[in-house]
């Protein structure tokens, strides 16, 4: 207790160096929490966006459908069974038909995936309603995402010649008119894809009442079907790749965490070494006054530890309002990030859990104590008579 009081007194009376250390450490704490919060927020937002705009509460896949093999698309259409149709009518599910096709923008050829979606659907977060009112047009209305627009060079109002093969295996062609380019959060719904009305696509494919997959509403539990043509894929399965991707990215985040913490600890270590060097005479005096080398050693370690505690306190003082503000207002992402392969919105909202604060705080305190203690070990070997002379 006595040493703690002394350590407190020494810190309180010490010069700007200790306070600079405190500020530097508190920056590190806030930066670590913010970085981790950004990462967690990003992961959660990506997942949410993926669920909202693509995965839903799970999907029924036509048994031949393999999203990674476009050659299966031609064989991946089946008539929707009655039990699933009932759920679609209730608004609990929405059918999507997927067809591989080729488009010819600006005299080039490009393979695309044409998705037929019900313009009245409210199951996934896609602006399908903009496809309404084009039933009598001689062209096919379609919208694309901004990533697709960038890759293909298509603009709103453009017509693009499209070639596909219907379920009988016959090639057919027509013009798709791009009626809108939208920002689609999930890249899986954007790149090399064109969204058109489901009815139009069914007509193009001569596949009345058929679909490739049926997306369930987010909060709808698994629906059973007696049809063996349809296989249910739950959220875990559909998000497996994303979760693995997030895990991989977490390694980078951990690396950044270690770098930040390392820099902060290096500053403390350096300050402690310098402090012991500069305060040798004081150390000698303390020993002459009746302290043991070990207690002087502990005193210096406590001083280091208190710097850690004070930095946490400082971080709470200015960091909490800042972190709270960022969590509420979010951080507007630059276009480059929006174009990435992750499904993120325009604004990223950091997410901090209590565990993050407690763990980071504890790691900081413990590591500060260790790096404060390590240089003080030389005090135990210090000759008091030499120390008294500042040697």
């Amino acid at each position, binding site marked *: 207790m006595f040493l703690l009081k002394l350590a407190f007194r020494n810190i309180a009376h010490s010069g700007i160096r200790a306070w600079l250390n405190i500020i530097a450490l508190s920056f590190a704490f806030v930066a670590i929490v913010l970085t981790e919060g950004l990462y967690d927020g990003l992961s959660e937002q990506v997942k949410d966006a993926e669920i909202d705009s693509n995965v839903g509460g799970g999907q029924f896949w036509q048994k031949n459908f393999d999203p990674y093999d476009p050659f299966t698309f031609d064989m991946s259409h089946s008539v929707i069974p009655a039990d699933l149709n009932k759920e679609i009518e209730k608004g609990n599910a929405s059918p999507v038909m997927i067809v591989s096709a080729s488009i010819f923008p600006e005299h080039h050829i490009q393979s695309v995936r044409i998705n037929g979606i019900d313009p009245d659907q409210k199951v996934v977060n896609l602006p399908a309603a903009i496809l309404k009112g084009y039933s009598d047009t001689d062209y096919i209305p379609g919208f694309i995402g901004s990533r697709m627009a960038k890759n293909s060079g298509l603009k709103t109002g453009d017509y693009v010649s499209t070639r596909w093969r219907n379920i009988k295996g016959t090639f057919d062609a027509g013009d798709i008119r791009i009626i809108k380019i939208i920002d689609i959060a999930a890249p899986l719904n954007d790149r090399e894809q064109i969204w058109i009305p489901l009815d139009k696509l069914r007509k193009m494919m001569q596949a009345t009442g058929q679909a490739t997959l049926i997306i369930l509403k987010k909060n709808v539990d698994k629906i059973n079907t007696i049809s063996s043509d349809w296989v249910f894929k739950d959220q875990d399965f559909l998000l497996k790749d994303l979760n693995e991707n997030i895990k991989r990215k977490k390694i980078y985040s951990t690396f950044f965490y270690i770098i930040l913490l390392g820099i902060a600890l290096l500053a403390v270590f350096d300050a402690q070494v310098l402090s012991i060097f500069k305060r040798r005479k004081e150390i000698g005096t303390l020993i*002459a006054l009746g302290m043991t080398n070990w207690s002087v050693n502990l005193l210096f370690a406590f001083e280091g530890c208190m710097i850690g505690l004070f930095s946490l306190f400082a971080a709470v003082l200015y960091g909490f309002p800042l972190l709270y503000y960022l969590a509420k207002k979010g951080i507007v992402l630059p276009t480059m990030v929006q174009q990435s392969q992750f499904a993120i919105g325009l604004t990223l909202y950091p997410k901090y859990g209590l565990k993050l604060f407690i763990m980071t705080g504890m790691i900081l305190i413990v590591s500060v104590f260790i790096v404060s203690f390590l240089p003080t070990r030389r005090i135990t070997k210090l000759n*008091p008579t030499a120390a008294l002379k500042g040697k």
Partner: protein
Amino acid sequence: MNNSCIIKINGLVKDYPMGKKFFRALNEINLSVNTGEFCGIVGPSGSGKTTLLNIVGALDNPSDGDAIVMDKNVNDLNPKEAAKLRNESIGFIFQTYNLLPVYSVFENVEFPLLLLKKNKEERKELVMRALEWVGITDKANSRPNQLSGGESQRVAVARAMVKSPTIVIADEPTANLDAANSHNILGTMLRLNNELKTTFLFATHDEKVIGYLRRKVVLNDGRIVDDVKVN
């Protein structure tokens, strides 16, 4: 006054390693100091004065021989016991004052009492009494960097005396002071020696200090060459 022997040194040797050889700083020192003495170890620089005081103050160990301070052989003390001896019984005064720079005068003088775990009231009373002894109560809240050399040394004397130690070890206490301040400090120490019967052991080659000594032990090249009582 009990004139019992408080410091007993027999055949004391101190060697310092110098490369592959050793430098003998103290050579077969035999010395006894009684309670209440105002004794000075006198000699030129490098004669071994500070080394001898450091051993008596349990800050250093002899290479050979015995240094018995208050019935405790310094050589046998572990670091904790040595610290206890210094804490309870020995006060130090240094040439460069060695005040703790971040503490006020009051806190500097209070420090030995904190180590002795005295309560707050007692600490305050003892600190103010010590500051009165050296006539510096008005500087209680000052920081060491606001004090002159003479004032700093008076604070150091107060810090050494505040716990009423049995022995005060003063290593060149006036080396950094002008004549007026030196006489002032020495007068204060002599008065405290008379009033409190504290044993003072100086290391000095300052003629002003030598004039105040009641016993002069002359050291040269690590050997005692003279030991005279002065009236």
